[in-house]
């Protein structure tokens, strides 16, 4: 590999990091409130909103069912509205966030739902309001599960970001496709894959360590 290739690899890595990093933060900030709402508005929950619960559930399922590459194209008008462009890293961040948010919301919902009902009851019994229950019971008690779920989301986003090349966003996945698939440059492709594997391993390691620390209490 030429030094130029190393430079390209490094830039692709930074592109992936930006795309996944920004989208992951959006997914986290948007996914948790959605998951909290889904759990609280479920039948017998603290919020009585069965219709909103069903609508939100259907919308989330809709986004989850759409393949990312289709979403990427279908969202182009919206992407232009938000970022003013339909190409480049920022153009990929919009569909990536929109695809990751429902994914993470569902995973977070499962963790939140597993918080024992007795704890919520105990919190009510000591005079907690809904907000207190979310803040002091649901989120802290589900934290290990939320972190585990967030790790899964980030890893799957690294995979999805490979398709961002379709809007000229670049990144590691795009580089692997262009050099490995279109130019038969196996060396570059293998190098990219090594970097991807290392990235995924590091993300997974950080997530697992955090979960283990929390569970050890």
């Amino acid at each position, binding site marked *: 590999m030429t030094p130029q290739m190393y430079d390209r690899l490094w830039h692709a890595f930074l592109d992936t990091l930006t795309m996944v990093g920004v989208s992951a933060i959006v997914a986290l900030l948007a996914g948790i409130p959605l998951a909290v709402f889904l759990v609280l508005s479920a039948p017998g929950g603290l919020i009585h909103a069965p219709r909103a619960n069903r609508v939100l559930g259907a919308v989330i399922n809709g986004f989850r069912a759409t393949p990312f590459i289709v979403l990427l194209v279908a969202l182009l008008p919206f992407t232009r509205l938000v970022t003013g462009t339909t190409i480049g890293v920022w153009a990929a961040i919009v569909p990536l966030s929109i695809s990751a948010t429902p994914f993470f919301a569902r995973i977070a919902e499962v963790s939140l739902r597993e918080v024992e009902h007795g704890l919520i009851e105990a919190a009510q019994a*000591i005079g907690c309001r809904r907000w207190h229950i979310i803040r002091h019971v649901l989120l802290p008690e589900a934290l290990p599960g939320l972190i585990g779920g967030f790790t899964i989301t980030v890893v799957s986003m690294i995979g999805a970001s490979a398709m961002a090349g379709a809007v000229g966003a670049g990144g590691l996945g795009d580089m692997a496709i262009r050099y490995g698939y279109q130019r038969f440059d196996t060396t570059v492709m293998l190098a990219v894959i090594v970097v991807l594997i290392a990235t995924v391993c590091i993300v997974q390691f950080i997530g697992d360590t955090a979960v283990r620390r929390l569970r050890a*209490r």
Partner: protein
Amino acid sequence: MSAALFDAADDVTRVVGVTSRSAEESAPSSAGRPAAVAAGSIRFQKVEKTYLSSAGPVRALTDITIDVPAGSVFGIIGRSGAGKSSLLRTVNRLERPTGGQVLVDGEDISAFNEDQLVALRRRVGMIFQHFNLLSAKTVFGNVALPLVVAGVPAQEVRTRVAEVLKLVGLEGKENTYPSRLSGGQKQRVGIARALVSRPEILLCDEATSALDPETTLSILSLLKDINRRLGLTIVLITHEMSVIREICDHVLVLEAGRIAETGRVWEVFGNPRHEATRALLKPLDRGLPDDLTERLTSLWNGEPATALVEFTYTGAGGLQPDLARLLAVLGDGTRIIQSNLDRIQSHVSGRLIVASPARADLQHLIANPELAHAARIIGYDAADV
């Protein structure tokens, strides 16, 4: 409640139903509530609860009308599914009755809005069978939570948490996480969390059912101590009669969502009227050994034999097993074979079984109201028992 409550002298003697709480009735904290009602009293009025399930409506509680006196330890017992938990949860409205009223300090809580409900729940503490402690918070964090969400200043939170942790005997455990505590310690944290808001009522939901017998006793004596020192009303539910016997003043037996019987503990224990009560009392009652029961004959053939006589005491009227009197009636050779007597709230109740030489007029002799509330000949044994 004033802070002085926590320092209330240990030697406050408690007469059932009249407690140190009565001195608090005129305290400013009870302002705004009906003046004639003591702080910590609960009144259930025709309470009904029907759950809607997929199999149709299920009736959990029917026509429950009873008063829980302020400052008392009130036990609710019943088999599983009798509705104990539902009834207990109507007091802090974790459960909303579908009919009737629950009055706390004379106020009907069914009409409460969210703010009133939060205020009520700060006056009514609750502890649970499985403790329900937050695993992500330390002992301090758990106990402080009721104050933190109530907006109490941090400095006061620290003093009050330290105060209750001392009361429950958990000083120095502030920074421990619940997973590192034993069952008994966890329940103490639960009690501390319930008491830190200085409630006037403490609800105990099977608080000792997950604990071993020794820990159960220590938690019960802590509850008794709290009741005596802080004068708060304790309502507890259990399926173990021994818990009722240990600390309760009054008992309510629930059966299939209805009141089976109710009264002072000694009355119900000494003279259980309902089949459900008898069934629940069974574990406390040691019967005669089987080999002996099998040997007994119900009729006496006139040969020299031993008669087994059972005297029953209900605790009523201060009548107690008077040995001199028993001996005077039964004569020489009379021995105590088994005794199941218990002294509850200064009333002696239970059974006393004696062996005495068989005689023709025995039945007549023992039918004497001065000896016991009831007496019967269990049977005769040709051999010596």
